[in-house]
């Protein structure tokens, strides 16, 4: 029962991020979502393995990554997404529509693994869709990074399904890679900011044929 609640709250936070346009609040919302996310392995398979996983995800996703993102946008003047590529209303509608489609598809996917809760696969898929929508619909570089991270959270939810058999080393490796990815993206956002004076990707479009 607790697991369904956690999954629903993760999806709810995802939608809130989608509707938000302030960079600062989006990062905090992401931190909150990762906190709930790191709790879920304890609910599904309580055990030593899950505890280690939870601690590592908390350190990485709740503290390190948001602080890095805040460091990256310390000089950014405009903190608000003035005019996104697609309006906020439409992105939310699109998000809702995509989640509907995902729920439909995942219902007829046959799941060989013993089913913890039938909500897990649809919520993970919808998190990926929301992350993808964020990536596509926004101009601010930081919003795109957050979109990428939300998608990673969705994928992480999938990893839970097979928690016990992937060796710890691989899990750690995946988390480490995501962290380094965000690190590099942060540095590049910094460079964009120095070069163009604003972290928006509008002026990143003159390389074309």
């Amino acid at each position, binding site marked *: 029962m607790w697991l369904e609640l956690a999954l629903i709250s993760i999806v709810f936070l995802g939608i809130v991020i989608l509707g938000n346009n302030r960079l600062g609040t989006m990062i905090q919302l992401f931190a909150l979502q990762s906190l709930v996310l790191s709790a879920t392995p304890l609910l599904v398979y309580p055990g030593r393995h899950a505890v280690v996983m939870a601690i590592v995800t908390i350190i990485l996703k709740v503290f390190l990554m948001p602080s890095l993102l805040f460091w990256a946008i310390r000089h950014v003047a405009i903190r608000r997404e003035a005019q996104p590529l697609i309006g906020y209303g439409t992105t939310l509608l699109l998000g809702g529509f995509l989640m509907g489609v995902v729920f439909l598809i995942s219902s007829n996917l046959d799941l060989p693994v013993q089913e913890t809760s039938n909500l897990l696969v649809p919520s993970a898929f919808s998190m990926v869709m929301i992350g993808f929508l964020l990536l596509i*619909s926004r101009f601010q570089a930081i919003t795109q990074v957050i979109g990428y991270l939300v998608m990673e959270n969705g994928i992480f939810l999938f990893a839970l399904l097979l928690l016990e058999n992937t060796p710890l080393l691989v899990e750690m490796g995946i988390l480490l890679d995501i962290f380094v990815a965000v690190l590099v993206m942060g540095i590049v956002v910094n460079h964009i900011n120095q070069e163009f004076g604003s972290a928006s990707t509008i002026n*990143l479009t003159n*390389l074309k*044929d």
Partner: protein
Amino acid sequence: MIFFLYSLAILSASSILIILTSRFRKISGGIFLISTGMGCVLALMSAVNVLVSRTAVEAQLNLRLPFGEFTIGLDPLGAFFLLAITVLFLLAGIYGYGYLKDHEQKNLSVHYALYQLAIISLMLVVTAKNAVLFLMAWEMVTLSSYFLIVFYDQEKAVRSAGYLFLIAAHAGTFCLWIMFLLMASHAGSTDFDQMALASFPLPLAGLVFVLGLAGFGVKPGFIPLHIWLPHAHPAAPSHVSAVLSGVMIKVGIYGLMRIIVIIKDFPQWCAAALLSIGMISGVGGVLYALGQHEIKKLLAYHSIENIGIITLGLGIGLWGQMDHNELAALIGYTGALLHIFNHAVFKGLLFLSAGSVIKAAHTGEIDRLGGLLKSLPWTGHLFLIGSLSICGLPFFNGFISEWLVFRALFEGMFHFKMNALIFSGLAVISLALIGGLAAACFAKAFGAIFLGNSRSTDLAHVKENSALMLAPMVVLAAICLWVGLSPGVMVSLALRAASTIASVEISPTMEGVIISPLLTVVLVLLVLMMVIMVLVLFKRIAMGIFPVEHAPTWGCGYSAPTSRMQYTASSFAEPVLRIFRNILGYAVKGGRPKGYFPKAGEISSHVTEASEVFLFRPIFQFIKFLTAQLKIIQYGYTQLYLLYIFIFLLALLIWKMV
């Protein structure tokens, strides 16, 4: 075969040596001359003894390649082509050395090395016994001749001509890829001998033939595919265009013959297709040539015309082979092969003499030349011999090969069924028309360049070229005369090569039937020479007795005739072009000056190149337009790119999962 391998080794070694010694021009030039000479002579010897002894020889190249081992082999067909290749490359090489000697800073050693690379790749093409080695050599021929064409790469026209040649040849090669792979997949191996053993069903043979025509048709220049020829020849230096149109374009015909050797029987329409292509290319080539007023462009179109004649011989030979009429097949193929050798010789001679005219008078425009026979006697007379032989007039080699093609066509007329009769009848008429028009065109060319008065004043200081350039031309002219007056030798060699194509044994009686009429022709020519001697004798005596005076040409009483009033090339060709104007799109621009105080009037006539203007230019523009439109895919927005990936993922999921 050993000589052939030695010549290959010498040529490849010397091409590398020439590049290494590129700094000292004298030495690299010397190496070039010696090595080309030795290489060609050795290859010539190996070709001749294969032709004489009628036995095919083979050798193994130890190249370690995914397609297994590579064998090259000299059979009479390949040897006959080797004959033409070595003779022309040797003589054009010597001429080229003389032609480029006083060229300014240009680094000649690279050019010489490429020249030898062209020889090697051509030799490999005619001796390759494996489809992949054939394709390899074929591509090397294209590449080396491309770099030979763009020798004067400062001008933009030369570069675009080279580019047009490269893409046309390469597009042709792709058709060859499909053709050879179809044959290989059917016969199970890429070796020509294995392919020859397999029996090909008629529809597959038809498809292979069509692909062969498209693939092999680009280099010889069958009418719709010929657009690169008139651009490439004026752009290339003369000895390169001599080699190009003398031998390089014949490699396509060799390819067709090799296909006929491998796949014995073809559907009926293939020979009809060959004959119609021959007719269209022949007549079209000579008509376009009449409309050209630049020497090398004119000669380029004449190459297309002669390729048309060769294809007529090939077509009637193929028809004879399919109707199991050995005589027609043999004579047809012999006529085609002999015309290949003759064309290599007299076209080489014409291009080399055109080159020395351009070198002496610094322009190729016929309408600005005139009266060069007095200042360039050697070049003039050699050009005359070349023109006489290309028009197929009796004393020279063109007549012999056209005579053979005529005979094959008439054999076809007597023995075949109705549709063969119509096609060979049409072919006879078009061959006669080609002969007439070629005579008109070369009378125009020779008359306008060498006879009458010089149309532009600066021809005063034109002087004859060095002996190094004239010697090869004299040798070529001698070959023309030798084949013309004693055809027995060359016709029997060509007959041996033809017997490999028709894969039928030649009995001495059959050889006699083919060659004896030619000997009577030579007899008639001897009688003609005697009558000429008698008449000249009488004239000589009369000149002694009666007075001889000199007076200006009778201008029908016009008081101030100037040299620009002479008949120029364009005016000479005007009556013929007016008869065929709607085929050629012949248009005259400018004309009589208008108004009371007319400005300077000017008149120009030109022939529109149909297949280039209406067929290939539109296709190329359309491809360019299409790609330009589709370039907006890369519009610069990262979000757009991510959307592409997402949509593609969705499409895959729907296609594969649902």
